[in-house]
C-alpha cells in the first residue's frame, strides 16, 4: 500500500483569457521510505500538482477538475479546509525553493520552528524548544543554543535551508514535499543539502516528493522518477530506467541538457587582451579589512573564454565588476588592450566601456520593466553613437536575429518573455556595442537546465561570430567546463588552481577543486 497515491489529478487556472489546464491527469505514487522525484521545466505543472494536494493553490483562480489523492486511505482532494489543515505541517510537510524568502524575516527562527509542534500537538513552548534544539543539531546548525534566537538574515542561504528542513521535520511527518530545495544554492551547498535530505529521509523512514527541473540533482537520491511536460507525466520509472533506458524524447532532451564534456584544448594563439595583475579589493576598516579579492592575477587572450569558478563570497563577482570599473579597486592593475583601466575617468572610461559589456545573473531584475526590447537594444546603440536614428531599427532587428528572438517581439516588454528569452535580450544588449570583451556573471544560474544548455550554446556561437573574449563566472564547475577554454578556481578571494577543463576534471591538484568536483550532482551516475 503506497503512502500517497495520486490518480488522474487535473488542475486548471481560470483567468480572463479563459481556462488553462496546468496539470492534465497525472498519476504517481510515493512509497513509505522512498524518494519520488518529479522532474520538469518551469511551467510544466510539477509544483502546482503538489501544492494542490495540500490546498496551497489559491482558489480561485485555481480549480481542481478531478482526480483522487489517497494519503493513508483518505482522499486529500475531498477534505475540507479544516481537515486539510490538520494534515498540513503534521503529516505532510514542505520545504520550498528559496530559503531567503521562505522564512519570516520578522520572527526569530526558534519561534518559527516550534510553531507546527505547538499548534498541532499542543506541546508546551519549552518542550517544543527542546525538540527544536535537537533538530537544529541534527540538521547541522552550529551552536543551536544561541543561534535558535537569531533572525533569518543572520544565516547564510544553506543554513536557512537547513532551518527550513528542521521546521518541516519537527512534527515527524510521514511525507515531505521538497520543491526545488537546492536550486537557489551553490553547488557545494547543494551537495550538502542533498546528502542531508537523503540521510534524514532514511533515518526517519519518510516518503519524499522531490521536485526539480534538473535530472542530475536527483540522480543520486531518487528511487522513482516521473518526468513532466506540459501538465502530463511523459515518462515514469525507477532511476536505472530513466538514466539508462529513457524512451521519451523529452526525457532524452533533459538528459542531454545536463552539462558534460569539455571543449577541445584551445589554440594558444592570439595576443593578450585583458591582463590583470595583483588585483585587490578590500572593504571596510583599513585596520582589519574584508579581503574580498586578494592579489589575483590572470590574463585572457583575444577570443578566449575564461571560466571563473567559486562559491558565493569567493570574490568572483567582485572581480568581474572590477574589470568593468563597476566595483572599487584597492590595488593592482587591469590592463585592457594596452590601456591601464584603474585610473581612467570620464570620456576615456566611456570609450572603454563601449568595448566591455556585462551579462547579469538575473534576467528578471536586470532588464528595465518599462522598456520594450526595442528600447533596451536601441539605447546602447544610440548612446555610443554606433547607430543613428535612421539606421538603429535595422541594427536592433539584426541583434534580435543573432540572439534568436523573433522580430515580431520587438515591441514587447520584459514581463511578456520567459526567463530564457529575457536572458537572450540581455545578451543582445551586451552585444549591441560590438564589444571585444564580455563579463558574464552567472548568466544561466537562474534558468532551467534545458534553457541553460540553449543559452550556453548561443553564447559559444555568438562568441565565435563576434570574436569575443569572455570571462564566464559561475559557481557550477560543470557549466563552466562546458563553455570555457581555461578555468580559474577561486577560493576566499584567491586563485587556488588554474587549467583547462580537462586538466581540472581529470587531474585536480588542489583539495578545494576536488571538493567542487565532488559536488557536481549525479557525477557518478553520468560519468
Amino acid at each position: 500500500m503506497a503512502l500517497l497515491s495520486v490518480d488522474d489529478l487535473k488542475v486548471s487556472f481560470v483567468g480572463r483569457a479563459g481556462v488553462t489546464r496546468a496539470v492534465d491527469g497525472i498519476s504517481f505514487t510515493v512509497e513509505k521510505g522512498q524518494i519520488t522525484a518529479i522532474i520538469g521545466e518551469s511551467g510544466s505543472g510539477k509544483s502546482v500538482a503538489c501544492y494542490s494536494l495540500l490546498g496551497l493553490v489559491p482558489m480561485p483562480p485555481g480549480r481542481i477538475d478531478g482526480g483522487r489523492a489517497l494519503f493513508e486511505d483518505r482522499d486529500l482532494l475531498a477534505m475540507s479546509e479544516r481537515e486539510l489543515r490538520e494534515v498540513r505541517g503534521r503529516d505532510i510537510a514542505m520545504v520550498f525553493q528559496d530559503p531567503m524568502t521562505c522564512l519570516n524575516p520578522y520572527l526569530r527562527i526558534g519561534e518559527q520552528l516550534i510553531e507546527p509542534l505547538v499548534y498541532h500537538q499542543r506541546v508546551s513552548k519549552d518542550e517544543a524548544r527542546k525538540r527544536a534544539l535537537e533538530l537544529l543539531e541534527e540538521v547541522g546548525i552550529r551552536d543551536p543554543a544561541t543561534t535558535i534566537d537569531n533572525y533569518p538574515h543572520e544565516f547564510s542561504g544553506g543554513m536557512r535551508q537547513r532551518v527550513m528542513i528542521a521546521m518541516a521535520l519537527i512534527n515527524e511527518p510521514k511525507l515531505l514535499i521538497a520543491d526545488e530545495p537546492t536550486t537557489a544554492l551553490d553547488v557545494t551547498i547543494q551537495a550538502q543539502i542533498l546528502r542531508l535530505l537523503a540521510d534524514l529521509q532514511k533515518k526517519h523512514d519518510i516518503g519524499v516528493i522531490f521536485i526539480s527541473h534538473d535530472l542530475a540533482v536527483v540522480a543520486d537520491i531518487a528511487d522513482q522518477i516521473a518526468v513532466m511536460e506540459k501538465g502530463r507525466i511523459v515518462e515514469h520509472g525507477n532511476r536505472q530506467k530513466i538514466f539508462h533506458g529513457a524512451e521519451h524524447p523529452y526525457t532524452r532532451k533533459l538528459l542531454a541538457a545536463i552539462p558534460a564534456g569539455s571543449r577541445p584544448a584551445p589554440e594558444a594563439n592570439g595576443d593578450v587582451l585583458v591582463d590583470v595583475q595583483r588585483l585587490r579589493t578590500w572593504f571596510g576598516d583599513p585596520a582589519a579589512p574584508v579581503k574580498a579579492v586578494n592579489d589575483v592575477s590572470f590574463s585572457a587572450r583575444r577570443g578566449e573564454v575564461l571560466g571563473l569558478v567559486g562559491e558565493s563570497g569567493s570574490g568572483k563577482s567582485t572581480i568581474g565588476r572590477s574589470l568593468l570599473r563597476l566595483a572599487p579597486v584597492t590595488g593592482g592593475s587591469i590592463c585592457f588592450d594596452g590601456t591601464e583601466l584603474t585610473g581612467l575617468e570620464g570620456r576615456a572610461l566611456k570609450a572603454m566601456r563601449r568595448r566591455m559589456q556585462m551579462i547579469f545573473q538575473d534576467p528578471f531584475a536586470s532588464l528595465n520593466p518599462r522598456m520594450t526590447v526595442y528600447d533596451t537594444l536601441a539605447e546602447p546603440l544610440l548612446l555610443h553613437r554606433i547607430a543613428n536614428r535612421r539606421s538603429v531599427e535595422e541594427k536592433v532587428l539584426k541583434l534580435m536575429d543573432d540572439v534568436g528572438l523573433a522580430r515580431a517581439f520587438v515591441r514587447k516588454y520584459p514581463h511578456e518573455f520567459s526567463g530564457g528569452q529575457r536572458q537572450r535580450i540581455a545578451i543582445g544588449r551586451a552585444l549591441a556595442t560590438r564589444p571585444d570583451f564580455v563579463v558574464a556573471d552567472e548568466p544561466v544560474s537562474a534558468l532551467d537546465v534545458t534553457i541553460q544548455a540553449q543559452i550556453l550554446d548561443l553564447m559559444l556561437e555568438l562568441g565565435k561570430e563576434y570574436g569575443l573574449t569572455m570571462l564566464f563566472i559561475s559557481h557550477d564547475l560543470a557549466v563552466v567546463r562546458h563553455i570555457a577554454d581555461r578555468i580559474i578556481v577561486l577560493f576566499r578571494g584567491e586563485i587556488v588552481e588554474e587549467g583547462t577543463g580537462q586538466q581540472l576534471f581529470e587531474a585536480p591538484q588542489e583539495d578545494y577543486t576536488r571538493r567542487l568536483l565532488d559536488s557536481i550532482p549525479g557525477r557518478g551516475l553520468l560519468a
Partner: protein
Amino acid sequence: MERFIALRLLQAIPVILAVITVTFFLVRVAPGGPFDSEKAVIPEVKAALERQYRLDLPLLQQYTAYLGDLAQGDLGPSFKYPGRSVNELIAAGLPVTAELGLYALLVAVLIGGSAGIFASLKPNTAQDYLPMAAAMIGICMPTFLLGPLLVLVFGIHLEWLPVSGWGDIPGDKLLPSITLGAAYAAYIARLSRAGMLEVLNQDYIRTARAKGLPEWQVVVKHALRGGLIPVVAFLGPAFAGLLAGSFVVETIFQIPGLGRFYVQAAFNRDYTMILGTTVFLSTLIVLFNLASDILAAWLNPRLRHQFGSSR
C-alpha cells in the same frame, strides 16, 4: 544609531531656520500691524508701545534679536495679550490640542488600520472595494465639511452628542476627534492595505500556511508585523499633521487649543505669537518624523542591529 539621530537633528537646524526666516519676513509683508485698530491710538502711545516691543528698530536688527531670544528658548512676549509670553500661551493651548490630536490618531489607527487589513484579506472583491471607496471619500472630504455634517446629524438631528466644547459635557470630545481623524483614517487604511497585500504575497506566508496554521494566525502572527511597518512610519508625520492642522476643528467645535490661538494671532498680526507657534510646530514635525523613522527601523530585525545589539 546615535550618529544617525545626531545627523538628522543637525539636518533639521537649517530647515527650521529657513521656516523662521520666511515666516518672519512674510508676516511683515502683510499690511497692518499689531497696534492698528479701529480706534485711533495717540501717536506717542503707539511709539512707546513699538519701542517696548522693539518694533522701532530696523527690521534686520529685529530679526537677529529674535533669533538671539529664540536661542535661549524665549519666544518673546505676545503683542495682543499684554503681560503674557508666547511660551505661556503655547503651554496653555498645547495640552488640549495634544489630547485632541491623540484621540484623532487613535481613531485613525483603529478605524483605518482595521479597514485596511480587512480589505487586504480578500483583494478585488466587495470586501476590498467598499472600505477602499469609503477611504477615498474620507480623503476627498475636507474637515470643514465633515465637521458641520457630523454636527448636523449627531448633534442637532439625532441629539446624541454635544455640538461643541471640550471636556465640559461627557461625550463632547467624540465628534471633534472623529472629524479630525477621518482623513488620516482613510490614508492609514490605504497604507495598511498596500502593506498587507505585499506581505501576504511573500513566500514566507505560504510557508506559514504549509505549516497548517489557521488563517487568522497566519495574518496576525506572520503578516501584520511586516505589513504595518509603512503605517508606523506614517504615524509621526500624521501626529505632527494632526497638531498643526487642528485649527479648523478647534474653530468648528469652539475648542480652546493651540490652533485657535494660531489663527487669531494671524488676524491680530501678533507677530511673535505667529512666529512662536510656527517654530514650535515645525520643531514637533521634525521630531515626530525622526521618532517614527527610528521606530520603523527598530521593528525591522535587519535594520535593528544599528541600535547596538542584535537581540
